[in-house]
């Protein structure tokens, strides 16, 4: 007797839902064991990391604000990932998006109001798109690998930020520290609940997944994306313009990253300094896969990741876990979900040894 993998005719819907949940639970369990081995109260640590942010109502706003950019960026990345287009430079597009919004804010001077804020956000979207357009064109015209170009452009984007906040955009009243002047209150994103930090961007992050869901499941474009990703040959026979699809996929992911950057700038921080880039663009890649490249999945996965961040900080003050463990947790969740992918596409069966010669065991 041995285990045999059998390809499912259709991906298992049940497994599609069960495996992410199992991955999170397994990560929690292993975390508990490992912490106990390290001499830390593992139960308390895992409770604090995964549950306290959900149970303590005053932590909800923190989770919401942290989740918003992750969700928005992951939505865009999922579109690309479905088309087998790998944009790992969302961090750069996020930075450029925020910078474009800041540029508009600075150009507007003291003018504020909804129109100015709207223009700032649109500028952010365009900025993110423009930054993603570079790898898109290079990929489609010269066949340059977009994984590497988009990544290299993250570093370039950071230097653009460093140049602007340390030079032309430096706050004249900022004591010569490299940072832009804080936004006028009239240029900031409205707060949804007075007295909280929950800004309009959180609402956008809640609505967008449903927009993307409609787009991906109901539109021709969504269909094209899926076909180009799963069967490029078929796409060519079907008369789809693969290049156009690739460009669109990258532009959408860039637009989302730029939007997230603009929202974070206008909604949360109000200034750009050298600490502005905070790895949202990279973490969103995990969110995208944890959410199974599904818009609603991204929404949930974004919240899960935000919970681990917020909870990780809680656990630091309560049980004093080292900060380095946060990354290990996130990677572990991703490992599990990637490993369990096989259960979605294959069925595990016990078979007699006679038929094992034909086994698909890879």
């Amino acid at each position, binding site marked *: 007797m041995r285990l045999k993998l059998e390809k499912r005719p259709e991906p298992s819907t049940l497994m599609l839902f069960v495996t992410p949940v199992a991955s999170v639970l397994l990560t929690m369990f292993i975390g508990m064991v490992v912490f106990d081995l*390290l*001499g*830390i*109260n593992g139960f308390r640590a895992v409770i604090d990391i995964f549950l306290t942010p959900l149970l303590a109502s*005053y*932590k909800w*706003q*923190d989770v919401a*604000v*942290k989740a918003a950019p992750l969700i928005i960026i992951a939505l865009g990345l999922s579109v690309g990932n479905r088309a087998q287009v790998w944009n790992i430079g969302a*961090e750069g597009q996020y930075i450029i998006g925020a910078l474009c919004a800041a540029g508009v804010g600075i150009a507007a001077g003291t003018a504020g109001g909804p129109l100015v804020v709207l223009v700032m956000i649109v500028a952010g979207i365009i900025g993110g798109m423009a930054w993603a357009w570079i790898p898109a064109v290079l990929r489609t015209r010269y066949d340059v690998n977009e994984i590497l170009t988009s990544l290299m452009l*993250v570093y370039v984007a*950071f230097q653009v930020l*460093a140049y602007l906040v*340390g030079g032309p955009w430096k706050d004249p009243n900022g*004591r*010569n*520290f*490299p940072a832009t002047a*804080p936004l006028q209150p009239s240029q900031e994103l409205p707060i949804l609940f007075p*007295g909280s*930090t929950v800004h309009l961007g959180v609402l956008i992050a809640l609505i967008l997944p449903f927009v993307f869901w409609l787009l991906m499941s109901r539109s021709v474009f969504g269909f094209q994306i899926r076909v180009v990703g799963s069967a490029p040959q078929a796409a060519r026979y079907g008369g789809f313009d693969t290049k156009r699809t690739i460009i669109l996929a990258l532009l959408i992911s860039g637009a989302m990253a730029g939007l997230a950057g603009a929202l*974070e700038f206008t909604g*949360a*921080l*109000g*200034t750009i*300094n*050298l*600490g*502005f*880039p*905070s*790895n949202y663009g990279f973490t969103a890649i995990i969110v995208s896969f944890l959410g199974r490249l599904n818009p609603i999945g991204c929404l949930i996965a974004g919240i899960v990741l935000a919970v681990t*961040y*917020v909870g990780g*900080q*809680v656990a*630091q*003050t309560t*049980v*004093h876990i*080292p*900060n380095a463990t946060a990354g290990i947790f996130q990677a572990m969740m991703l490992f599990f979900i990637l490993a369990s992918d096989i259960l979605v596409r294959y069925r595990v069966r016990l078979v007699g040894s006679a038929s094992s010669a034909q086994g698909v065991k890879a």
Partner: protein
Amino acid sequence: MSQITRRTLMKVAGAAATASVLGARVAHAEDKVKIGFIFLGPIGDYGWTWAHNKGREQVDAELGDKVETVYVENVPEDASAVPIIRDLAQQGCKLIFTTSYGYMEQTLEVAKEFPDVKFEHCTGFKRADNVSTYNSKFHEGRAVLGTISGKMSKSGTLGYLGSFKVPEVVLGVNSFLLSAQKQNPNATLKLVMIDSWFDPPKEAAATETLINLGCDIVTTHTDSPAALQILEQKGLYGFGQGADMSTFAPKAHLTAIEDIWGPYYVIRVKDILAGTWKSADTWDGFKEGTVKISPYNEAVPADVRELADGLQKGYKEGTFNIFTGPIYDQEGTLRVKDGEVISDADLAVMDWFVKGVESAS
């Protein structure tokens, strides 16, 4: 990428750092006044955060019967610092120290929500009724290093490994070179900014570059001992930054500037206990004990030690200030007239280099 502005330095750690990181703290006393600390790096970094944590430990040691301290380490300087600072306020902290420049807006934001909680923001400049700022005159320490370098450099070309062009670094460069020029009027300085507080391979390569361009002493304003290790290999001299780093370079390490925050923290916590805390802007140096010079290497000759000690004494007694005119800028324009002294307010925003700084960044 978010690590760009982080000051993480790894130095002699020993088991203590690990134990305190991994060991759970359970002390819970409801009647004690809670004091919170927000740290940029890990407390075991033996650099910026390590020094602040030493200050926290001093509060525990001196006032442990009345107060309880809590801290969060590795707090990013972006919007996510807000909930972490707020968390400490909600846990009931009466006084919260946010120990990096990048927490400025975040500190003010939380301070608005909690008017009854007092905040202390390190190296910033924005205050409120319940927000104080405090900083250290690191440049006073640089003057001591400059004096030693001016005497001990054979080539008269000094190297300076910087992080970013912020006032703290500009002041350090100017103070260092002006002091060196008092000993050797022809001393010049080459400067490389590596655009990071912490990037050991780049720090190492930048140090080699400075040496190759003729520098025989290199001082670092970045947080790793990488430069010292290179200087040790080449048989040249340098200084520790933030803490005594002599273990890493026993021969090259002439001395170090140490950051001592404890006395200030104890004073401010006492103010809270007494109910006399007021918003203030504090910029302490040698006089108040915030800046300290590590023991000298045996390679430092007696006459140089005497000069360096004399300079420290001058600062402690308030009779010496390196930023006393005449001071010329890089282009040779007289910026500070003979006998004039640059005010603290002007120092805090200084963005020009003095004559003799050969490379601008």
